[in-house]
């Protein structure tokens, strides 16, 4: 049953950033440990989708011993259906820059990079302008921190943090084995903090208002607010900041077109939730309180009854086949086989039981693929095939 949390609009992220100079100078006058404690007690989790506790990330990097460390802002927003980071960078860039510099202060880093998605090249001039203004102020307050933009080149996999490092080092964006983790061995083999754009923007809120204001939002295990990119069959597509922990039923009430048959939560690598599960599904990170709880990078795609779910999964698999880096076999071959498999079932060349075989293949990929891309193909595949089996066959 749903533990109903009404949909609550929040307005933190896009709220004015005019006081960034103030927030920056106040924050860097505090000892790193105090800032880390603040972040940890806010229970902020990474907003890129994986949900790693941000305070812990900063703490681990601050404990690593090295003269050179890096702060990287992951703006390789490639998940189909997300467009929040683009909005943050164009509307409140100084929040992100400030957060990067504060992070530099905390972990002892003098260099920051923004890995900007290739498709967002049009943001570059404005962002560079903001960076020079920012660096000018840093000089004024004697803060040694430089920020440089690195342009991506159109590869989805580079949103994976270690693939992103490889790409920045001028190589093919192929994920590394973990461990070692970025906090000890990141860009150029140096300790690195890598955070999503939205995560950094949230830390600004926390440094400005204190952890409590943030912690008071949301539910257990899923504190704070989050930006949602709403698209698909909805009368009001766009970006909305909402409190975490809401039930999907409430969400659909607000954004659906009255005929919503399913919602894809978290983009191609996320899960499809059919109508019958709207009530029992909450949006947040893993936790017992809300029943089934889905983590998400914030992509919410609504489908109404005119849409064929076969087309949706067909599109996702084409996407994964194209974007698989090809390094590990489960992902490279698995994506191809899943795609040709569902096509064969659709054409009637294979019988319906073949779908079960494909489900097992997807499960194998989940266990054996090297990185998040291959592991998460099963999410959308299994949830779509399970819930809309008849649409796969007929």
């Amino acid at each position, binding site marked *: 049953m749903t533990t109903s949390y009404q949909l609550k609009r929040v307005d933190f992220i896009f709220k004015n950033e005019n006081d960034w100079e103030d927030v920056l100078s106040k924050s860097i006058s505090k000892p790193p440990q105090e800032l880390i404690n603040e972040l940890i007690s806010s229970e902020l989790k990474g907003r890129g989708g994986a949900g790693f506790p941000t305070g812990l990330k900063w703490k681990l990097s601050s404990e690593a011993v090295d003269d050179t460390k890096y702060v990287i802002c992951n703006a390789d927003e490639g998940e*189909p259906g997300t*467009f929040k980071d683009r909005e943050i960078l164009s509307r409140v860039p100084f929040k992100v820059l400030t957060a990067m510099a504060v992070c530099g202060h905390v972990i002892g880093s003098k260099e920051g990079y923004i890995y900007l998605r290739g498709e*967002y090249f049009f943001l570059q001039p404005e962002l560079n302008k903001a960076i020079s203004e920012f660096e000018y102020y840093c000089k004024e307050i004697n803060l040694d921190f430089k920020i440089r933009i690195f342009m991506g*080149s159109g590869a989805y996999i580079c949103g994976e943090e270690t693939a992103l490092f490889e790409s920045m080092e001028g190589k093919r964006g192929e994920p590394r084995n973990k461990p070692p983790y970025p906090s000890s061995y990141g860009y150029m083999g140096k300790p690195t903090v890598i955070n999503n754009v939205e995560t950094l923007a949230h830390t600004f809120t926390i440094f400005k208002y204190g952890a409590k204001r943030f912690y008071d939002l949301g539910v257990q295990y899923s504190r704070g607010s989050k930006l949602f990119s709403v698209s698909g069959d909805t009368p009001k597509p766009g970006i909305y900041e909402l409190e975490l922990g809401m039930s999907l039923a409430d969400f659909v009430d607000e954004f659906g077109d009255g005929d919503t048959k399913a919602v894809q939560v978290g983009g191609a690598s996320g899960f499809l939730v059919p109508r019958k599960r709207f009530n029992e599904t909450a949006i947040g990170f893993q936790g017992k309180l809300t029943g089934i709880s889905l983590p998400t990078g914030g992509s919410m795609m609504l489908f109404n009854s005119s849409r064929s779910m076969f087309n949706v999964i067909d599109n996702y698999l*084409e996407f994964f086949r194209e974007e698989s880096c090809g390094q590990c076999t489960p992902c490279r071959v698995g994506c191809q086989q899943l795609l040709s498999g569902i096509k064969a079932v659709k054409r009637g060349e294979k019988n319906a039981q073949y779908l079960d075989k494909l489900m097992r293949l997807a499960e194998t990929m989940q266990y054996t693929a090297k990185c998040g891309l291959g592991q998460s193909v099963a999410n959308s595949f299994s949830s779509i095939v399970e819930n809309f089996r008849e649409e796969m066959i007929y």
Partner: protein
Amino acid sequence: MPGIKLSEKTIGIIQQVCSDFRNEGSELINVLHQTQGKLGYLPAEVQEVIAKELNISVAKVYGVVTFYSFFTMIPMGEHPISICMGTACYVRGSEQVLAEFKRQLSIEVGQSTPDNKFSLNCLRCVGACGLAPVVMVGDRVYGRVSPQMVKNIISEYKEGCVSEAKSA
């Protein structure tokens, strides 16, 4: 390798780009971006020069060029047309839009028109899912494109006059 022979001038341009990045192998992606910006595309011959300048193997350069979808080894048209095949665009009919572009221009994806005016490509999500389906011509974004609009979009560029009102 059979193919084009680069002029002294072209080689000079490539060498300049490489030295702008201190001839460092780790700057390969930046070098490729700049070179493609200047030459339009990155054929094998260009990659050979870059490999020599940065002192890395041609295989490595080729590996990177073919890995990233932004780099191309064939020349693009004067107005590169990209159709978004992201999920939001796809379910809202980008496939029909693509089919219409193919029909109007009589080319396939990855090809250019004989007069080199247009080239056709697909891309994955430009981050404008609220405007689905989305088409990009050069740097311009067209939102909520229907197959009926395709003819008009093409003719805007054929006549060389781009009306401001049409863009999203």
